[in-house]
């Protein structure tokens, strides 16, 4: 058992997966010799050798295509895209190939790959390094989108993602990479995919989030508890396929739903959750569903970034409005 932060947990999971299954290989830019720009793959080259950990040329389309090809041949590639802002050249390989290889060959070929990337803002990064466009991937049939918010979940969800026979986009909230630590047992246990996790139980309001925004969500719940309202905080974990049942069950008890995400409002993944609840949980609602999100703007550069990200104040305001609605 070790006290690990999120990036350490990712590293541990990779190490675990690679020692258990020789089909697991890791590649991307600067992942080998350098151990990854965030050190996610630190020590792996030394431990497993250049046949398992490969430094690719600077070519994201290639990284996506390599993963598809090598996965079709039976390997389990874990391909790293250095930042989500650079994933788009690989999007063609994900949407046109990875997500549909099994379908278009009627199961003859499949694509058990993981594409991992750091995502999200709040780290004073230059342009293009604070993307949060998980909704694009969540929209694609045939993919899974998984986002951990704790070190233990990063370990367990990544193991499950690697073991899954279908392609997984694994997005790591970089703001949380080193924010906090917790005990992570290297027991090889995967955290099940396709399931939301209730991080905090409550009865007055359901607060749904994922990734780095879980910090604000949990902080808001803590403050509202002092004001007499118990907030149930749900960590979505797997955006796609979405575990609507857990969210709906919670709303049936609380009657109030607030969704928090960093990504821009329009067509952000919060829309899917809100629509799902409107469809199947309308009569449980005592108040409109509220989304607290980034604005429909380009993510600002560091000087103004704090005005973009949904902060604790905005989350609290939305929660209080919803709590006093009826």
């Amino acid at each position: 058992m070790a006290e690990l932060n999120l990036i350490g947990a990712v590293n541990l999971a990779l190490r675990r997966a690679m020692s258990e299954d020789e089909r697991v290989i890791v590649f991307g830019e600067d992942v080998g010799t350098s151990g990854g720009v965030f050190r996610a793959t630190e020590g792996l080259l030394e431990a497993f050798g250049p046949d398992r950990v490969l430094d690719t040329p600077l070519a994201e389309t290639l990284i996506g295509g390599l993963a598809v090809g090598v996965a079709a041949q039976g390997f389990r590639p874990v391909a790293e895209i250095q930042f989500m802002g650079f994933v788009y050249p690989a999007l063609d390989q994900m949407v046109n190939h990875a997500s549909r290889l099994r379908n278009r060959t009627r199961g003859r070929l499949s694509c058990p790959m993981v594409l991992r990337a750091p995502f999200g803002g709040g780290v004073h990064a230059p342009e293009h390094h604070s993307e949060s466009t998980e909704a694009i991937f969540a929209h694609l049939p045939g993919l899974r989108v998984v986002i951990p918010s704790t070190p233990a979940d990063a370990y367990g969800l990544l193991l499950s993602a690697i073991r899954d026979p279908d392609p997984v986009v694994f997005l790591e909230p970089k703001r949380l990479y080193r924010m906090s630590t917790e005990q992570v047992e290297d027991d090889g246990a995967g955290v099940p995919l396709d399931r939301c996790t209730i991080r905090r139980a409550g009865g007055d309001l359901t607060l749904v989030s994922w990734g780095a925004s879980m910090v604000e969500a949990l902080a808001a719940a803590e403050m509202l508890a002092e004001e007499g309202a118990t907030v149930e905080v749900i960590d979505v974990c797997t955006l796609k396929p979405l575990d609507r049942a857990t969210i709906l069950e919670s709303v049936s008890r609380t009657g109030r739903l607030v969704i928090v995400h960093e990504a821009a409002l329009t067509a952000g993944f919060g829309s899917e959750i809100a629509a799902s609840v409107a469809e199947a949980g309308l009569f449980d609602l005592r108040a409109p569903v509220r989304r607290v999100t980034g604005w429909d703007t380009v993510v600002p550069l560091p000087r103004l970034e704090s005005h973009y990200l949904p902060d604790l104040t905005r989350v609290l305001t939305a929660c209080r409005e919803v709590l006093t609605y009826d």
Partner: protein
Amino acid sequence: MTDGAGDATFCLPDLGEGLSEAEIVQWHVAPGDRVVADQPLVTVETDKAVVDIPSPRSGVVDACLGEPGDVIEVGQPLLQFAVEAKRPDAGAVVGALPSAASATPSRVAVPAAVSAAESGVRASPRARQRARELSVSLEAVAGTGPEGVIQVSDVESAAAGAGGGERLGGVRRAMARRMTDAHARVVRATVTGEADVSRWSGTGSPMPRLLRALGAAVAAVPRLNAWFDDRAEMLALQSRVNVGIAMETADGLFVPVLEDVAGRTLESLTSELTHLQDAVARRSIRPDQLKGQTISLSNFGAVAGLHAEMVVVPPQVAIVGSGRVFERVVLADGKPTAAQILPLSISFDHRVVTGVEASTFLMALTTDLENDQ
């Protein structure tokens, strides 16, 4: 070996070596295909060999003149080219795009049906569910939520039946709403007067004469027979005078419309009025008979009362009221005499009708009534 370029009919060319005929083995093109010069059209078999016959020119194949197995002689027609037909541009490289012969214009807006009296009830989904569970009619619930939205607590109070009393329904409810709306929008002013109707023969309701006089008054001041769209700030004078006539029943106030009073005889007006009163009494009045009023008339004097300020219901801009006829001593040529006085009131929407217009209308009305026999 090629045939004359440009000819529509391509005949089997001389195959050389003294050969005079060939058997068709296999066509490589079909009618409709576009071909270019030298493209193999057909494989034929001679005594010596199996050869491909190339196309002499570019063009579109119209017909292949023979089946596999047929023997064609040199010089006989083998293939027909179409006389200049260009393949229509499909305008695509994949798929088949549907095209419609004509399309319904997409920008035609279907006008919304004008709903009768009731506006939508705003209630939260949970409140609606609760209302269903408790068999509470949402129309009867006052909403205390934001912007008057009905909430669960409101439904539950209503179900507990605070204070009891009559729950408004149907016609009375419609009236409550209509009057509330009118009050909110109309700036009402009222001018009153009297008509000396001593010369009227017969007894009976003044209604037919009032209706006819209304027609005359509108002719004098058409502006009081108009519809005002206060949102668009548009005043539309109405060409016909369709009078809404207030009629009271046990179930509440009805205002059926007597259409096009201008120029109608008293008999015709009387007869129509009777029909409407019967229909209202028997509740067989149709919804379309309750719509389209351009000006209204209330003969509250049939019961009691002289003058009144009445409710002008948008989009109308005026309502005429007649009070109870009474007897009074008046001076005629300086000498006291008895006269029958019919009190008149005109309430109007002062946003679009002036006092002078209303008074002029009153004068025309009064004159018509006083001149009648």
